[in-house]
């Protein structure tokens, strides 16, 4: 999942730069009319041939499972995970009637709230600072980008050591400065914050690279003229850098929200949804229902609800947030 998300910026950018060219042949062909109809068909066929392999793979590994999960969501399964009988929408109804699912929704939303703005803010600040061409800046860029090289599994294990209730590094330092130890992962009020802390750390690396790339795409002349006009660093950041990286920031926010919806690895390793379901985010609950308790029907129903929610939120982001985005 992680990989897919990260490779996304490339096709997006491509599509963007592609676009200005596409209308050109079309308008040219419109003038020549009949003779070009065949040429257009040929071009279309060629395009289809090129798209076919990708479409086939998509169909096999994405659309087919999607259809399958719709099918499963309407059935109950026996303990072996086989379809037992058709239950209609009962799986969905049960979801909203049981306390577990609404709780998971709330936990997921809280998790997004804790992680997305913080990750973006840290990445933005780090990127803004690292944009400066100063000797040794490369070292800082390297350090800030480092978490991207750490997999969720490795990262979680590292933080597990830091979070250990009695022998953990964090509590050791808290003890040194005379504070009472914090029950990072065992206190229901604290666990989600702890997981978020770790997730922000993990996200910052990728977002930092993304935003730094966006900032470096801004021509230096603009900054120079701003400087000549007497704009200080803070003003330059708010009035210049921020609007100019807004397309990147927008993209980063959309993928971050989707990424937060998908958070699983760290929760599986650090808390398993506990204590008292305080970190039981949707994807973890879904996983537990489908693959631990072998109820594929309920699991699929949750996957579809999750899909609908992510779709809705992304549409909303496009409708409302994109207005503020400044495309060059």
């Amino acid at each position, binding site marked *: 999942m992680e990989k897919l998300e990260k490779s996304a910026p490339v096709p997006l950018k491509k599509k963007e730069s592609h*676009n200005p060219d596409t209308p050109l042949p079309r308008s040219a062909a419109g003038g020549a009319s009949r003779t070009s109809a065949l040429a257009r068909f040929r071009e279309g066929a060629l395009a289809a041939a090129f798209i076919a392999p990708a479409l086939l793979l998509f169909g096999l590994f994405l659309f087919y499972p999607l259809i399958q*999960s719709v099918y499963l969501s309407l059935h109950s399964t026996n303990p072996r995970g086989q379809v037992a009988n058709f239950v209609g929408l009962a799986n969905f109804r049960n979801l909203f009637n049981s306390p577990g699912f609404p709780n998971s929704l709330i936990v997921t939303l809280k998790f997004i709230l804790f992680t997305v703005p913080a990750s973006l803010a840290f990445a933005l600040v780090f990127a803004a600072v690292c944009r400066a061409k100063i000797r040794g800046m490369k070292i800082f860029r390297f350090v800030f980008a480092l978490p991207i090289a750490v997999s969720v599994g490795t990262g979680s294990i590292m933080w597990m050591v830091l979070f250990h209730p009695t022998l953990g590094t964090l509590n050791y330092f808290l003890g040194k400065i005379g504070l009472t130890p914090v029950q990072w992962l065992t206190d229901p009020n604290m666990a989600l914050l702890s997981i978020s802390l770790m997730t922000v750390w993990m996200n910052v690396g990728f977002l930092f690279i993304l935003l730094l790339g966006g900032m470096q795409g801004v021509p230096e002349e603009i900054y120079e003229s701003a400087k000549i006009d007497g704009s200080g660093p803070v003003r330059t950041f708010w009035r210049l850098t921020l609007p100019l990286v807004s397309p990147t920031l927008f993209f980063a926010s959309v993928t971050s929200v989707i990424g937060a919806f998908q958070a699983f690895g760290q929760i599986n390793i650090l808390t398993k949804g506990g204590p008292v379901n305080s970190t039981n985010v949707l994807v973890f609950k879904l996983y537990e229902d489908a*693959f631990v308790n072998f109820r594929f029907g309920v*699991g699929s129903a949750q996957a579809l609800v999750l899909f609908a929610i*992510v779709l809705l939120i992304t549409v909303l982001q496009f409708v409302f947030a994109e207005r503020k985005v400044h495309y060059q």
Partner: protein
Amino acid sequence: MQSSRKWMFACLCMLMVVLTACGGGGQTAAGNGAAEAAAPTESAAKPAESAGPVKVVWWHAMSGELGGVVDELVKQFNDSQDEVEVEAVFQGTYDESLNKLKTAMGSGTGPTMIQTYEIGSRFMIDSGAITPMQQFIDGESYDVSHLEENILGYYTFDDRLYSMPFNTSNPILYYNKDAFKKAGLDPENPPTTYEEVEKAAKTLTEGSMTGGSFAIYGWFMEQLLANQGAELLNNSNGRAGMADQAQLGAPAAVSTLEWWKKMVDEGTMLNLGRKTDDTKKAFAAGQVAMTLDSTASLRGIVQAAEGKFEVGTAPLPKPTAADADKGGVVVGGASLWILNDRPEEEQQAAWKFIKFLAEPKTQAYWHVNTGYFPITKEAYNEDLVKENLKKYPQFQTAIDQLHGTELTPATQGAVMGVFPEARQLTETAIEEALTGAAKPQDALDRASAEITQKIQEYNSTVAQ
């Protein structure tokens, strides 16, 4: 600009389909994984029919050091004869290997035998995919009288042995003898009742030392209940017929949780979460003076404490002295199941291997190297075991506890198809109570109702 936006939108929509489909689509992925893992099995099984040794594939869940011991046992067996060749395949945790088995069932790609945790027994029977062990036992009048009754008890349903126990353990109370001395308690006289544990914890808590810590592990709750003779499910713990009602809200469970919570509230007992590994580490580091853990952890704990303090072991505490001769512990661990979709010849070969594993000599080796109980009483006569007991006298507590247990439905252990889930729910209830999110009675009532619902759902899908 406008069309660029549309493109971007379309792309993101695609992206979302991709990402969310992963959730639902995972099933196919898991299926593929299992098929892949099992693929060598099939190809390996075929030549066996023609000539040479019969190949038996054994899926197990013993990782790390335990896995090494498993491989050694398999090697010993393969070297000892040339009719059967066993291939041990590690399939991840108990949950993982069971899930892989579920996807492989009926596809002919599964193993010949599998090690499944004790709480998966009901499912294994209901799956209809296994050959009961009793069939092999009756087939050649194999003498089971040398095996431990208290261990067989767990895996016996309707007077038939369905699987062969392999690795078994109990929980015991570990305590720090040096801390006991320091606090003025008698290190040779550990607490045995709830009240004594509470008092000892209070005395022991001083400075950086806390009285104790129990991991929030459903298994401990089950054991503390069985230890006072209380049943977890109706229908005699699901042994007189399918259970359809959980009894977690009963007074025995509530008073146990209240006792636990009281100590946590008073600060004489730490709540270190669900991971037994975390409490184990805190105990080994001398930060808590008492803890509950499996007998299988004994060697590790004693070795970790070496040079720091002396480890003492005591039987699992009971509510009051009056409960002393009530109940006992339930065996935990796992057993071996033979699957019925493999050829008869292969099943017989697996049975041969299982008999080898039950031999006193094999069990002695297994016990000494892992800390699990030997399943045969004769293993205690082996020199290897005797020497080991000299080295780790603490293990005697575990053996006495096992032998002192009277076999009743309560100590045979509960059986239900949704046991793993019931544990999750129990653990949530314990967390709610310990952290003050709910009263013990309310938390347990809620968990009980949810477990009941899951059991009934399970029963209804199995009945079809």
